C-alpha cells in the first residue's frame, strides 16, 4: 500500500524527441488514486504520445514515469500491463474474428504465459467474470456474436470491457466516445463514472461537452508542454487556452 500523499502515477521531466522534434517536452504531472484526468489540446500537441510513453509503446528520451513506486520507462509493454496499466486505443482494437466472449476471455488476466495458456480452462470463475464485465459494458446479450458484427459504439465498449476484465489500477483511454451516437455517448459517460469509483483514469478527448461531463482535472497540452492545468472551470477561462485551442 502507498501513503495517501504519493500519487498513483507521477510523470517527471518526460521528454521524447523524434529526429530532434520534441513531441513531448519536459512534461511533469501526476494522477492520484481515483482521479479522472482529461488531457485536451490541439492536434499534434502530444496527447497520444504521452499515453504511448506511459504504456511503453514509445520509449522516452529522458525523464521518469513512476507507477505505484515502479519505474515504467524500463519495463516492456506486457510488464507494464501486468503492473496495472490498461490502454485503450483510438480506433477500436478488438479481435474481429473472435466472439465477444472470446475477446473478453483472452483479456482475462490468467494464463498469460505459454504453459499457462495451454492448460487454461474456461472454468466458472472465468465465465462469471466475463458475464459480469459484459453486463457492465451493455453487451451481455451479444456474447456469442463475432466482434466484427458489432456496431462501432459496441466495439468501443468491448475494448473498454477487455481492459476492465484486467482490473487495472490506471486506465488510459484515447478518445473513448469518438464516432459514438448521442445515446451511446450518454451511456459511456455513465460507464466511465462507474469505472472511476475503483481506479484512476486518464482520458484524451476532443468532445468538450463530454469532457465537462466527466472530468475532475483537465490538463491542456500544447506543443508537448502543459499549457494549463486545473478544474474545467479554470481551464475554460484561461486566456492562453482560449487562444490556442478553445477559440477556434
Amino acid at each position, binding site marked *: 500500500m502507498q501513503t495517501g500523499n504519493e500519487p498513483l502515477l507521477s510523470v517527471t521531466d518526460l521528454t521524447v524527441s523524434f529526429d530532434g522534434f520534441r513531441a513531448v517536452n519536459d512534461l511533469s504531472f501526476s494522477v492520484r488514486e481515483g482521479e479522472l484526468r482529461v488531457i485536451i489540446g490541439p492536434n499534434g500537441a502530444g496527447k497520444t504520445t504521452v499515453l504511448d510513453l506511459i504504456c511503453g509503446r514509445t520509449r522516452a528520451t529522458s525523464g521518469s514515469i513512476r507507477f505505484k513506486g515502479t519505474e515504467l520507462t524500463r519495463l*516492456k509493454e506486457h510488464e507494464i500491463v501486468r503492473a496495472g496499466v490498461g490502454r485503450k486505443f483510438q480506433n477500436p482494437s478488438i479481435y474481429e474474428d473472435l*466472439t465477444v466472449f472470446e475477446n473478453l476471455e483472452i483479456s482475462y488476466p490468467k494464463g498469460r504465459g505459454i504453459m499457462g495458456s495451454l492448460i487454461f480452462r474456461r472454468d466458472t470463475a472465468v465465465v462469471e467474470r466475463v458475464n459480469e464485465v459484459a453486463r457492465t459494458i451493455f453487451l451481455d446479450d451479444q456474447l456469442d456474436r463475432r466482434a466484427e458484427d458489432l456496431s462501432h459504439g459496441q466495439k468501443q465498449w468491448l475494448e473498454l470491457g477487455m481492459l476492465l476484465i484486467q482490473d487495472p489500477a490506471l486506465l488510459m483511454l484515447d478518445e473513448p466516445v469518438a464516432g459514438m451516437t448521442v445515446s451511446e455517448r450518454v451511456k459511456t459517460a455513465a460507464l466511465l463514472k462507474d469505472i472511476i469509483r475503483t481506479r484512476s483514469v486518464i482520458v484524451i478527448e476532443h468532445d468538450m461537452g463530454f469532457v465537462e461531463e466527466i472530468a475532475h482535472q483537465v490538463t491542456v497540452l500544447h506543443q508537448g508542454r502543459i499549457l494549463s492545468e486545473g478544474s474545467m472551470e479554470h481551464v475554460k477561462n484561461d486566456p492562453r487556452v482560449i487562444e490556442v485551442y478553445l477559440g477556434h
Partner: protein
Amino acid sequence: MKSLLRDRKTALFVLVLVAILAVILPLVLEPFRLNLVGKYLTYAFVALGLVLCWGDAGILSLGQGIFFGLGGYCMAMFLKLQASTPEATKIQSTPGIPDFMDWNQITTLPWFWQPFHSLAFSIVAVAAVPMLLALIIGLSMFKRRVGGTYFAIITQAIASILTILIIGQQGYTGGVNGITDLRTLNGWDIRTDHAKLILYFVTIALLLVCLGGAHFIRCSKLGRILVAMREREDRVRFSGYDVASFKTFVFCFAAAMAGIGGAMFTLQVGFMSPSFVGIVPSIEMVIYCAVGGRTSLLGVIYGTLLVNWARTSFSETMPQVWMFAMGALFVFIVVVLPGGLASLYRTYLDPYISRLLGSSSKAPVHAGREADHANG
C-alpha cells in the same frame, strides 16, 4: 450441443482420413505408389506446422525446408554411420567413416557426427535440432519485432544459406549429392517392400500424433491468442502477453514437426540431399498448405497429397509443364480460392454433413474457432 456436434464431426473426419490412408490406399496401390504416398505425407508434417504459424498466427515462413532438411539430415547421419561399418567400407583409405568423407580426404569422423552413433540421440535430435535453430531465429527476429514480409524474406535467406553451406562443406555433409546409400536402421533393412510398408504406417501414426498435438494447441487459449496476434498484435501485447515468446513457441513447434517429417522422408526415400532444404522446396511446402486451406489441419493433409500426386503425374507425362502448372495453381488459389480446398468443403459439404449427423439447427459453424477457420 454445438460443441458435441463439432466433436463428432472431428472424430468422423479423422476416421475418414485414417480409413483412406491406412486401409484404402494400402489395398489399392502397388508398393511403389504407396511408398510415394508415404513420401508425400512427410510434407504434410510441414503443412500442419504452417497452419499454426501462417494460418493462425500470420507468420509466413518461406524457410520450412530448413527444418524438414535438418530433421532429415539427423536421421540420415545415423543411417549413414550404420551403413559405414569398417567391414562395409574396408576398401576406403580410412575404413569406418562415411564414403563421401573418404573421397574428400577426411580421415576421422568429425565431432558433430559422433553422437549420431546413438539411435536414441538421433531420434531426439530429429526434433530438437530444428527446434533449437527455430528458437534462435525466433528469439532474434520476434524480440526485435521483425515480422510479415521481412520475416518471410529472412527465412528464405536462411534456407538459401543453409543450402550453400551444405553443398560447400562436401566433406562433412555429402555436398550436393546429399547423404545417400542408406541401408539399415539398427540392423533392420529399410529398403525392402515390407519395411517400406511398415514405415508408411509409422508415418501415418506420427502424423496423427502431430495432428492431435496441433489440434490441442488450436483448441487451447494459446490457439486463440495466435489468431488474436494475427488480428491485433498490439492489443495482445497490451493485454499483458509477451507476443514474441508466443510467436517463438509456435515457430519452434512447427519446426519440430517439420523435422519429424524430414526424418520419415529420409527413412522412406533412402537418402537426404540439399535439394529438400532450399528456397524452392520451402515455397512448395507453403503452396501445399495454401491449396489445402491454411486454416484447416485436415485440409492441408489432403492439399499436400493432391499437389504431390499431381506433380508426380505431370512429371511422368509432361515434365516441362509441371513448374508452370504449379505456378498457375498457386495464382489460382490466391485469387479465386484464398481459403483453399477447405473453404470449398465448408461452403458446399459442411451444411450437408451437419444435417446428416443429426443437427436440426441450420447453423453449422459455431461462432469463434470454426467461424475463424471459415474466414481465414
